[in-house]
């Protein structure tokens, strides 16, 4: 079914491409840049193309990279990747009733995921109903992760491995916004299917939230019948930027089956803070996110699996040249810097009282060239220190990445 849907979308996009010979047949819908956009608007804030009288708008983005990395002096050489090709379909069904979707092909099509497919019904600007496959609003990156928006080729470690972005599942909820003068307040609240026990039973040898993403059954039924609750509040000021606080939590283990109690309920909870702004004086963009995760791991299970995790990132992006270049009227060259950290096992060993490590720290300087806001060519240098559980001398992994990402 998923493949059929995908094929239909590809054919539709091919049709649009053909129609571009006659520009009267299609219309590019550019996001409204005058409004105060928030992270929660990311699914709306994308460029779409509408073909003629087709009731749906289409879009997507693609990323292609090359990388040369070395781990403690040993390199596997140069490699090329197409980490994701993402297709969007959106449709206004009736006034104030919309359908939006995002389908992602990862690693050259080896994985096909419906990351987002929801119907939004606006009852009031303060009260919208959303149902379907939702991207849980925990942190900011999970909702606002489109490749062309970022100057960095690798996604932030903490936002993809502690919060397992893109984390989406089936659920319902409400959201709303209230704007006054230079301020916008927003909230989101959802009930959805949740995680499963793979987060502490996986081949990564650590508490690993992305392991639950391999369970596609979460789109059909809950693993344990207990809903995952996600709440987010955010406020944006035109000058000071946006700050969000979010929480997501629920029971992850199968504590009962066929009426038989198997285990006590064990929870996983996330608390995240996110912030983004653009300094008006220097036009510097600052984006950051920090997450704490709390996992109910049985005391008789191995300490290899962390009971607490934490981590985050901060990105600084500084435009250095903004002027017409090579025939592109709104071209920009940016320099960028990311610092990031993830601690997969916050705590101390029972046996020694010593610190448990299992941490990653990385610094990523980069440069990017944007012919327009929707396309980015980027070059990054990444240096990361990986410390194992015991805190032995860090494994150093560093390398260069070069890539392109663009909406289409």
């Amino acid at each position, binding site marked *: 079914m998923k493949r059929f849907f995908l094929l239909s979308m590809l054919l539709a996009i091919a049709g649009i491409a053909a129609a571009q010979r006659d520009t009267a047949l299609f219309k590019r819908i550019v996001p409204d840049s005058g409004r105060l956009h928030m992270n929660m608007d990311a699914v709306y804030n994308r460029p779409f193309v509408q073909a003629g009288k087709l009731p749906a708008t289409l879009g997507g983005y693609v990323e292609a990279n090359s990388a040369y990395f070395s781990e403690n*002096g040993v390199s596997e050489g*140069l490699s090329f990747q197409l980490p994701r090709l993402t297709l969007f379909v959106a449709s206004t069904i009736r006034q104030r009733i919309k359908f939006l979707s995002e389908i992602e092909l990862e690693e050259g099509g080896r994985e096909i995921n419906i990351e987002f497919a929801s119907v939004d019904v606006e009852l009031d600007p303060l009260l919208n109903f959303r149902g379907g496959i939702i991207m849980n609003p925990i942190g900011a990156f999970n909702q606002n992760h489109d490749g062309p928006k970022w100057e960095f080729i690798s996604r932030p470690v903490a936002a993809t491995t502690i919060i397992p972005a893109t984390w989406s599942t089936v659920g319902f909820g409400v959201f709303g916004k209230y704007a006054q003068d230079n301020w916008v307040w927003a909230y989101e609240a959802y009930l959805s299917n949740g995680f499963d026990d793979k987060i502490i039973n996986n081949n990564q040898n650590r508490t690993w939230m992305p392991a639950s993403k391999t369970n596609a059954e979460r789109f059909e039924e809950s693993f344990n019948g207990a809903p995952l609750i996600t709440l987010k509040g955010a406020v944006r000021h035109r000058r000071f930027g946006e700050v969000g606080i979010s929480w997501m939590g629920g029971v992850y283990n199968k504590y009962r089956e066929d009426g038989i109690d*198997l285990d006590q309920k064990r929870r996983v909870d996330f608390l995240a803070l996110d912030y983004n702004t653009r300094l008006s004086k220097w036009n510097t963009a600052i984006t950051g996110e920090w997450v704490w995760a709390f996992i109910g791991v049985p005391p008789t299970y191995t300490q290899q699996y962390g009971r607490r995790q934490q981590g985050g990132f901060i990105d600084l992006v500084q435009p250095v040249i903004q002027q017409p270049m090579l025939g592109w009227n709104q071209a920009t*060259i940016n320099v960028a810097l990311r610092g990031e950290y993830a601690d997969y096992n916050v705590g101390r060993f029972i046996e020694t009282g010593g610190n448990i490590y299992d941490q990653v720290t990385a610094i990523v300087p980069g440069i990017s060239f944007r012919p327009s806001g929707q396309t980015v060519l980027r070059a990054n240098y990444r240096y990361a220190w990986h410390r194992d*559980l015991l805190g*032995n001398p860090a494994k150093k992994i560093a390398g260069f990445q070069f890539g392109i990402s663009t909406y289409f």
Partner: protein
Amino acid sequence: MSNKYIWATGVILLLVIAMMACQKMLPRAPADDRLLDGPVAELSTEQHIQFLRGDVAFNDEVFTAETGLGPLFIATSCGSCHAGDGKGHPFTTLTRFGQPDTLGNRFLQRGGPQLQHRALPGFLPEQLPAGATFSRFMPPANTGLGFLDAVPDAELLKHADPDDADGDGISGRPNWIPLPGYGSLRPDAIQRNGRYIGRFGKKAAVYDLLQQTASAYNQDMGITSAYEPHDTYSGQAIDPEIGTSKVLDVVFYLKTLKAPLQRNAENPEVKAGRQLFLELRCSSCHVPELKTGYSPVAALSFKVFYPYTDLLLHDMGPELNDGYTEGTALPEEWRTPPLWGLGLSMNAQGGKYFLMHDGRAGSIREAILMHGGEAQQSRNRFRQLTEPEQQQLLWFLESL
């Protein structure tokens, strides 16, 4: 297009190419003598391929409930207990229980000889049975095991002096153990009353690396194999949870890990420390040099190497007697642990030393001072050294 933009594009492209070409911005490989892992020299291509397969199985394969972990276990992977192929950490210390003397383990029907103190969710881990004597064992380093495995029995017996015939107070003897029901004998195996010389493990109660590997999969991770088919939870023989070829790959990996390389061997202080090591007669048990016999792996055949062990049992005195033993070893007897790689232990133990059989010593000096029994004279001589001399000896040991 103006020249300005062509130049700008060219500069960016050059920058990218320069970055790609710049090896100096990539991390350097640590010096070979700073690492415990890596293969022995002179392996053939086929042997390297098997080494890599074993490396992946040992260091990368993590067991889960679906792949056979537990339900009772100690660790989820081989690499969990041997970070960087080095010594373990108190977090991964094993508890063995149930055998107070040479008459055998009396708790085999009650979970012995190894306590699986961790369990999958929903299961209760094993508890130490009341009345069972026990000892905690720190996982050893894996380096150079193939060399130790290839020493002929006769070579080990040359160092044995069970009745202290030479009157030097040192009376090393082998642990004569029954063979497991699998594996094969060494070509020159020496038998005594149906038993053979054990050489691995704290009590030298393990015959070879196949027994060590199959037993560790079973007792440490709850993984059954064709060699050890009994589930540690139910006690029943069940389908193998790991294939024989993978077990053999891991055995080959362990067998072909390189021997640790000494660092700063020519440093005068280190040389002086080595001389003191010999003068204090530490080398009576920690025999500096051994020689392998024939091995089907040419890289291990007829090689002289420097492990600083005799692989024999020695009485270490009452302070190191935990009341637990294995095979024909007495509770106060311990196999001489190899000292090679000692100075790199901290790199696998989280930046601290956890030495002696259970990690009770926090430094090499502490470990020396814990030696009793046959090693008491050497310990006393160490105490009588001046502080600079003691430091020279410690530097020598750290160089190994």
